[in-house]
C-alpha cells in the first residue's frame, strides 16, 4: 500500500510543490514570531487550486520545515524561531559560540529529520493504538503531565537552583494573569482587555532570548573581541561516528516521548522539546555538558520538535481532532478536498491516508537535503558584523512580535521582556524554568481544578488513575534524581 502511495507521490509536480513548501517554511520558521501555524495558514488558500496530493505536499512541507528552521535562528542568534525551538537555544547557541556552527546546524537538520521520519513510521504502524492512548489523557493526566514537566525546573536551572525556582514560580505567577480558566473571573488584568487571554508567551520568548541577548552583547562588547568565535569556515556539518554513538540514547528516548506528546491534543513541540532535553540529560553519560553546548542536548531538542508532527497527525487523522494549531488548519484543508479526518477516512480513502504518510516522508527527505545544503548559506550570517546582526534582529523581533496577533501590546510585552531578559542574564538567573512555567502553568492550574470539578472535590482522582500515577512517579524521580546524583558527586569529590 505504502509502496503504491510512494509511487503516486513520486511525481515532478508533487516534488515541486513540496519544495516550494519547504523553502517557504524555512523562511517563516527562521523568522521569530512567524510560526508554523502562520506558514500553513498562508499557503492554504493557494492549495485550493491544486490537486489534494499537491496541496498537501506543500502544506506538509511548510509544517515540517518551519519547525525545523526554528532551530536555525535558535542556533545562530539565540532567538527561537518558533516556540518549539526553545530547547535548542540551550545547547545550539553554545555550540555556535564554541565555533561548532556547522555541526550544530547539521545536527539540527539530521535529528529533526530522524524525528520526523520516526514519527511518520509510528503513524504508519500504530496510528490507532497511539490515538486511543492519547484519548485516555483527561484532566487528571494533563495535570500530572504538567507537574512532570514542572519538576524539570530544577534540572534546567543548572547551577543556580534557588534562582531557578524563584524565576520559575514567578513564571507560574505571571501565568495566572488573565481570565480564570474555570470561573470567568478576571485576575490581575487591571482592566486591560489585552491581558484577558493572559500574557502571550511568544512575545516574552522573543524578547527574553532575542532582545535580551543583544543588550547583553552590547554591554559585554570588547573592542577587538567578538562574542562569537571568529571562524574561517563553519567546520564539519556531519557528526562523527563517535558523536552518533553518544547521541543514540537521546535519539531513542526523544523519539518515543515526542510522538506521544504530539498525539495528546493540546500539547506540542514546545513542551516535547523541553521534556526530551531533560530526559536525554538524565540518561546521558555526560549530563554536565547539557546547557554548555552538548550535541546530545541539541539532538534531543531538535528531534523532539519534529517528532511531534507524526503524533499530531496521528490524532488528527484517526480522531479528527486537532493536536495543535497547525493541524486545526490542516483539518480545514482536508475538508476543503471533501475528506473528513477521522477513523472513517482510513476506510473510505485508504489511498489518501497512505499518500499523506508518503508525503510526510518526502517532506522530511526534502528538509534533509535542503538543510544540509543550506547550512553553508545560513552560516554566512556569522561572517556579517555582529552590529549589523543586532540591528536586523531588533527589527525582526519588533515586527515578529507584532505580526503574531497584530497587537502593539505584544510589542510592548516583548520589549519589556527584552530588558528583563538582559537583567536576568546579568543576574545569572536561568531562563529555562521561567519558560517552562509559562508553558505549563496554565495547563497545571486549569486541569487541577477541572479534575476536581469532575470528581466533585475528591482529590483521590489524581492517584487512582494509572497514567497519572506513572507521571507523578516520574516527576518524583526527576526531582530527586538530580539531588541524589549531586550528593554522590559530592561524596566522590570529598573522597
Amino acid at each position: 500500500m505504502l509502496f503504491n502511495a510512494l509511487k503516486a507521490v513520486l511525481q515532478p509536480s508533487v516534488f515541486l510543490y513540496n519544495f516550494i513548501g519547504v523553502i517557504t517554511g524555512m523562511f517563516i520558521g527562521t523568522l521569530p514570531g512567524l510560526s508554523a501555524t502562520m506558514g500553513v495558514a498562508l499557503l492554504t488558500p493557494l492549495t485550493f487550486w491544486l490537486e489534494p496530493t499537491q496541496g498537501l505536499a506543500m502544506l506538509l512541507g511548510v509544517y515540517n520545515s518551519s519547525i525545523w528552521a526554528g532551530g536555525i535562528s535558535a542556533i545562530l542568534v539565540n532567538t527561537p524561531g518558533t516556540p518549539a525551538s526553545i530547547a535548542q537555544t540551550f545547547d545550539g547557541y553554545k555550540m555556535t559560540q564554541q565555533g561548532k556552527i556547522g555541526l550544530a546546524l547539521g545536527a539540527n537538520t539530521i535529528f529533526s529529520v530522524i524525528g520526523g521520519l520516526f514519527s511518520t513510521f509510528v503513524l504508519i504502524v500504530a496510528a490507532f493504538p497511539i490515538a486511543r492512548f492519547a484519548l485516555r489523557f483527561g484532566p487528571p493526566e494533563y495535570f500530572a503531565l504538567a507537574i512532570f514537566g514542572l519538576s524539570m525546573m530544577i534540572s534546567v536551572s543548572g547551577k543556580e537552583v534557588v534562582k531557578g525556582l524563584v524565576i520559575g514560580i514567578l513564571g507560574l505567577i505571571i501565568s495566572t494573569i488573565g481570565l480564570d480558566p474555570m470561573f470567568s473571573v478576571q485576575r490581575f488584568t487591571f482592566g486591560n482587555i489585552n491581558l484577558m487571554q493572559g500574557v502571550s508567551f511568544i512575545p516574552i520568548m522573543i524578547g527574553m532570548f532575542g532582545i535580551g541577548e543583544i543588550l547583553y552583547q552590547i554591554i559585554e562588547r570588547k573592542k577587538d573581541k567578538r562574542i562569537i568565535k571568529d571562524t574561517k569556515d563553519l567546520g564539519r556539518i556531519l557528526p562523527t561516528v563517535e558523536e552518533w554513538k553518544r547521541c543514540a540514547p537521546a535519539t531513542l528516548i526523544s523519539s518515543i516521548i515526542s510522538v506521544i506528546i504530539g498525539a495528546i491534543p493540546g500539547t506540542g513541540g514546545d513542551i516535547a522539546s523541553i521534556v526530551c532535553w531533560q530526559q536525554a540529560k538524565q540518561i546521558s553519560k555526560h549530563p554536565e555538558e547539557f546547557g554548555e553546548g552538548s550535541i546530545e542536548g541539541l539532538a534531543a531538542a531538535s528531534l523532539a520538535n519534529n517528532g511531534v508532527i507524526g503524533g499530531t497527525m496521528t490524532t488528527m487523522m484517526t480522531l479528527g481532532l486537532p493536536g495543535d494549531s497547525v493541524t486545526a488548519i490542516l483539518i480545514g484543508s482536508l475538508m476543503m478536498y471533501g475528506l473528513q479526518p477521522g477513523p472513517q477516512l482510513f476506510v473510505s480513502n485508504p489511498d489518501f491516508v497512505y499518500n499523506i504518510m508518503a508525503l510526510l516522508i518526502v517532506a522530511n527527505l526534502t528538509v534533509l537535503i535542503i538543510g544540509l545544503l543550506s547550512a553553508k548559506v545560513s552560516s554566512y550570517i556569522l561572517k556579517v558584523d555582529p552590529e549589523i546582526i543586532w540591528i536586523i534582529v531588533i527589527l525582526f523581533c519588533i515586527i515578529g512580535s507584532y505580526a503574531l496577533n497584530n497587537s502593539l501590546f505584544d510589542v510592548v510585552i516583548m520589549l519589556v521582556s527584552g530588558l528583563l531578559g538582559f537583567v536576568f542574564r546579568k543576574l545569572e538567573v536561568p531562563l529555562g524554568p521561567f519558560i517552562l512555567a509559562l508553558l505549563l502553568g496554565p495547563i497545571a492550574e486549569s486541569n487541577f481544578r477541572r479534575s476536581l470539578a469532575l470528581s466533585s472535590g475528591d482529590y483521590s482522582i489524581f492517584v487512582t488513575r494509572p497514567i497519572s500515577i506513572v507521571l507523578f512517579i516520574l516527576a518524583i524521580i526527576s526531582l530527586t534524581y538530580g539531588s541524589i546524583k549531586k550528593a554522590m558527586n559530592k561524596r566522590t569529590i570529598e573522597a
Partner: protein
Amino acid sequence: MIKRSRLLVILALALSVMLAITACTGGDTGEDNVEPEEQQEAEDVGVEYPEDQITMIIQAAPGGLSDTVARTVAQELQNDLGVPVVSVNKTGAAGAVAMSFLQGSNPDGYTIGYVPVELSMVKALGFANDVEPDAYTLLGRSNISPATITVRADAPWDTVEEFLEYSKENPGKVKVGNSGTGSIWHIAAASVEEATGAKFNHVPFDGAAPAIAALMGSHVDAVTVSVSEVKSGVDSGELKVLGVLDEEKSPFFPDVPTLAEKGYDITVAAWGGFAAPKNLPKEVEDVLIPAIEKAIQSEALKKIAEERAFTVAYQNGEDFYKFAKDQFDFYMKMIPEMDIN
C-alpha cells in the same frame, strides 16, 4: 569624541527623516499618505468607494469555523469589489479584543470584521463595555449553527428523554463539557437545565475541541457544542446526537429531534456575520452591504457550509441588527442570572 558622535547622530536622524519622506512621497508606499485624501474624497464626492485594500478583522485563530467563513467571504468580496481584501486574525478575550479594535477603527469601509455570537455576550460577561450591537454598523449575517446534546455512541441513553430523566434522578452526576465558563455552549447547557429542571455538573474546557476529546475519552458524559463541531465525530461512529437546541431540525441530522419537539422551548446557537464601525458613510454602505450579501450567498460559502455542517443564514444589515440586538437583550438578562462567577 562625544561631540563628534552627537553630531553623527543628529546627522543620521536628519538624513533618515529626509530619506523616509522622499521615499514615502515617491515610492510604492504612497499608501501611507493616500488614506486621509481618500477619506475626504469619500465624504465630499461620495464616489469610488473601494479603491484601496480592505482589511477584514477576524476574532479567532486560523483554522476554526469563524476564520474559514470570514476568509471565504473576504475572497468573494475581493473578486467582486476588485480590491484586495486582506484577512487579519486578532484573537483574545472571546473575540472582544478584535471587536473592540473594529469598533474603534475609522468608519471608512476599509476596516470591516467578522462578528460572532459573542458580539451580544461579552458586555454581559464584563469583558468589554464598548462591544454591543449598537456600537457597529451591521452588514449582514452569514451563518448559524445550533447547539446539540451529544453523548458517546456507547452511552446508555438513546433519546433525549432518557438522558434528561437520568440527569434529573442523579442531580449533579452527569458531567457536561462546554467550551469555557460563560461561553455560548455553557449557556446552552444552563438553558437546558433551566427549562427541564435537570441538574448537570458543568465542566469548562478551553474550547470546543478539547471538550469533544474529553467526551471521546470518557472523561465527561456529554457535551453541548454545535452541530458543526460534533459532525465528524458522529460520522465516524464515535458520538451520537440526542437533541438539537433549535426550532427546526438540523439538515445535517435529519433524524435527531429538536428540544422544541419535546416540549422545551430552547434555542441556543452560535452565529456570525459582518460588521463595520458605527457611522459608516451611506455611499460606502450602499456598496458594501450588497457585496457582502453576494459573498455570503456565494457557491463557495455554500460548499464550505456543506463540509463544515453549518447553515448559511443570510440576513441583511437591518434584520441582522434586530436579531443581534434581541440576542444582546436576552444575554444581558440571562448571563447575570446564571451565577457563573
